[in-house]
């Protein structure tokens, strides 16, 4: 596998990892995270600035509270319905003033954007603007990029990088900091605080990293 393909695959794995971690916790899911964490770390993550926050989150694995306690925390933070959750993990909540009908329009626009990127259905059971969905979209794009590098199709790989950059700029990098602030106020320490910190660090870094790669290509 070419090194560029490996980097893309690592990023794919990270987005998938974070997406899983932000789904409702269960013993099986937590075990999976515990197994995946060292595998990802071994992929030379210390090259990248976000590895500091990733390592901080890793200190919470294995989870030292019961899955039940974590479930309660998950519901409290993310899943008590839009009006009661302390930090709803959906983009439209943070981006649409006044909520209501505007949110539906926002989500419809997002679905159109997915289709324009060649993503027909987003099927993890959550809404198109749920954080796990958006992270899964990035995972999909990184996987496609990895395949393009493997096939020596540089043009397609850079095209996919441009799509990733645009998606990060327009969406994740805009609202994840707001989510992070809410989680930080509601639960300043612990599993979900460090997890959201790590996600925030990853998406901010990824936007800068992908932009730098594209800029380097544009000037060559």
């Amino acid at each position, binding site marked *: 596998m070419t*090194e560029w393909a490996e980097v893309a695959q690592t990023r794919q794995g990270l987005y998938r990892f974070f997406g899983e971690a932000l789904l409702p916790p269960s013993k099986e899911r937590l075990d999976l995270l515990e197994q995946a964490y060292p595998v990802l770390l071994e992929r030379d993550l210390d090259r*990248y600035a976000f590895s500091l926050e990733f390592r901080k989150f890793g200190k919470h694995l294995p989870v030292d509270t019961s899955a039940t306690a974590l479930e309660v925390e998950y519901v409290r933070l993310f899943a008590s319905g839009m009006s009661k959750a302390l930090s709803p993990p959906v983009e439209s909540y943070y981006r649409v003033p006044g909520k209501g009908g505007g949110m539906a329009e926002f989500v419809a626009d997002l679905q159109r954007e997915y289709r324009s990127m060649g993503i027909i259905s987003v099927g993890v059971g959550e809404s198109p603007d749920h954080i796990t969905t958006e992270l899964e979209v990035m995972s999909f794009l990184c996987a496609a990029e990895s395949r393009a590098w493997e096939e020596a199709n540089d043009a397609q790989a850079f095209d996919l990088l441009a799509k990733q950059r645009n998606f990060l700029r327009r969406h994740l990098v805009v609202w994840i900091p707001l989510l992070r602030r809410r989680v930080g106020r509601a639960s300043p320490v612990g599993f979900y605080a460090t997890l959201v910190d790590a996600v925030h*660090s990853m998406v901010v870094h990824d936007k800068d990293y992908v932009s*730098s*790669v594209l800029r*380097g290509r544009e000037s*060559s």
Partner: protein
Amino acid sequence: MSVGIYVCADDPTIESGSVDAIRIESLCRHPDRLREHATGADRAVVVLHEASADKAAVQKVLRSIDIDPLGAQILEVPDDAGDVSRLIGGLAARAAAFLGSDPENAKPVFPRTMTRRALLRPPLPEYLAAPSVDPDVCEAANGCRACVDVCPQEAYRWQAGRIYYNKDICEPCGRCVTACPAGAITNPAVAPAMLEAQIHALVGDGSERANIRFVCSRRLLRTPVDGWYDVEVPCTGMVPGVWLVATLLLGAGGVAIVPCSESGCPLGLDNSARQALDFAYQALEEVDGGKNSTLDDVGIRVAGLKRRDLVDPFSTGQAAQIMLSLFETAEKETVLSHPGSNLGVVSIDPEACTLCTQCSQTCPTGALGHGYEGETVSLTFDPTLCVNCGQCLLVCPERDAGAIRLEARVDTVLLKSGRRPLYEGTVLRCERCGKPIAPLKMMDRIGDLLGEEFTGAMKHLTSRCVDCRGL
């Protein structure tokens, strides 16, 4: 915070003196060896002796031992540097004062062009410390755009009361940090507390004379000069004159600015650095006629300048404290007009000013203020808060008529007198509820501009406030 100090052992002439440092064989070529010697410290100073040492690789290893590389101090010493213990002590103090960074502060840097060869393997990014804007402190909503005005790369944009920062085009120089009147922009690698800690450590108790050079981070080779110690900044164009004065007041025997190259600053900020140095020297001359200070090719040297306890001297808004401290021993009150002054004095032309209060509403430091009392609206000015940012000039609708003037000036009489009235006039009040509507002069001016056909509308606008107009 605990600081681990790691020195490459390959150059035996590098002496760390009494500093508790860990010497590591071939650290320059094998930075991964840091891992084996990690002490669990929160911060790090890494001393290398080869200019070709790979900073990106050092940063990677630091992350693997849970140290934020943006706060780590990496020192590259030239051959036969000798005793660098004082330099290391300064860097350790600076590292210890590092408060951490946010993900927004790390800017990955790749080679400028990605050749076909580079396409074969992803380069290891080096990370620079980029600034970030605190939206809770930023005064953009009131019209301030000081960062937009000073950025040499146009990385900032003001739109609809918000500042937008483009990290992609930013080449961190620090100008925005020192230019922001509100202190809303910070760069974690050059925080005020870090500079203060480093300079205190370098100057020590004053028993051995230490001179301080502010050096550009882009400078590739630094020729050591005996008795001069380097304090690195992203670009010397960010160094204001008051920092040089503060450094002398903290006990340094001299100050200098060393730009990145003799052929000129690539960001075009040479003039800023020269101006800062000249301002500091002119200020010293005002104290005692220049009897105890000299300016030569190396920098400014002083003798007999009394040390002062300054509070947070490298933070925003400390210029008044610093200049008053300097001039307290001057034989007479001081007036120093200089383009490099970090203090300003605002004056109003009562013929042209309409008391619209745009200037005071925009003033990001509160130096300009306004208030309503009875039938009067008054504009006031506190010179200790004015940082000469010029935002008041930009928003004044009558600036072409000379309604407001700003002079870059240190005036100790004014600084000691505190807030004073600049101009006052009559305020129109709502005939229904009594709330202030607008200054009379401003409404007269608007009426003049609109012309006679709007006389009726103006009468309505000047008799009722916006809440009562429809009633």
